[in-house]
């Protein structure tokens, strides 16, 4: 089953978020509150994840296809531009407001928390607004340059 594997990997990822404390927004905010009683735990989440990730991507970088024969799709973008900086800033502000980023949002949805549900809805709306604005600007570009 081809969708069983991504489902199981999602489960492992979600359990990692729960065990680490990332799925508790109050703990995330305590990490982001440098001037208050600082809880540095989440730095260790990054350390643990990157320790494994470094090995995994080193192995993956030597291959053209995955162990299941699928193409390895690495990001190709290199540029550090206004989109990257503005997008990361907006994301960071949103993360700091509620203490929730996309992975933990989905885990909170699964806990049945009404606030988790509302956050996920708003997050999808934000993503949909982005997709729509991209389409709009592409359509405008096509109109101003009809030869392309």
């Amino acid at each position, binding site marked *: 089953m*081809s969708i069983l594997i*991504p*489902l*199981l*990997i*999602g*489960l*492992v*990822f*979600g359990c990692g978020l*729960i*065990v*680490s404390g990332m799925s*508790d*927004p*109050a*703990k995330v*905010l*305590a990490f982001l509150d440098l001037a208050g009683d600082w*809880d*540095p735990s989440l730095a*260790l989440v*990054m350390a*643990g*994840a990157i320790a494994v*990730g470094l*090995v*995994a*991507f080193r192995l993956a*970088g030597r291959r053209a296809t995955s162990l299941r024969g699928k*193409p390895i799709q690495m*990001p190709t*973008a290199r540029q*550090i531009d206004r*989109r*990257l*900086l*503005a997008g*990361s*800033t*907006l*994301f*960071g*502000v*949103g*993360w*700091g407001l*509620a203490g929730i*980023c*996309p*992975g933990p949002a*989905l885990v909170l949805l*699964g806990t049945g928390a009404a606030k988790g549900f*509302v*956050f996920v809805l*708003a997050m999808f*709306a*934000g*993503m949909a607004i982005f*997709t729509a604005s991209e389409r709009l600007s592409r359509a405008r570009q096509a109109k101003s340059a009809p030869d392309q």
Partner: protein
Amino acid sequence: MITIDWLHFTPASAFAGGLLIGLAVALLILLEGRIAGISGIVGGLLQPLRQGDVAWRLAFALGLVAAPLLYRWLLILPPSHIDAGWTTLVVAGLLVGFGSRLGSGCTSGHGVCGLSRLSPRSLVATIVFMAAGFATVFAARHLFA
């Protein structure tokens, strides 16, 4: 000066959870050839590039949603506290959704996968969103509280 909250500092479970997240990242790239960036995986559902690109995204997201159910069934699910009010939650959700798509990644895509790939672009993104997160919490808790 920074005061560390030793009472709530949980280095062992944080590191162990981090290893599990790393395992999931490793499995997704080595088995499926994909980057475990949650905003990209979920956001891609709204703009599928080709047929056959939807099922794995949905399955992965479903795994994340099902994780607390599985966890609760096997062990005791640790409590989570969402202190933000409803309006704040909606604004935060909109910013997280829009910002992570505009910036091509979030904590997982840039913060974990990008740093593991030693990508300068992801390093910059991670520094920027962490700084924005620190600044936002500082403003909310210490300037306007």
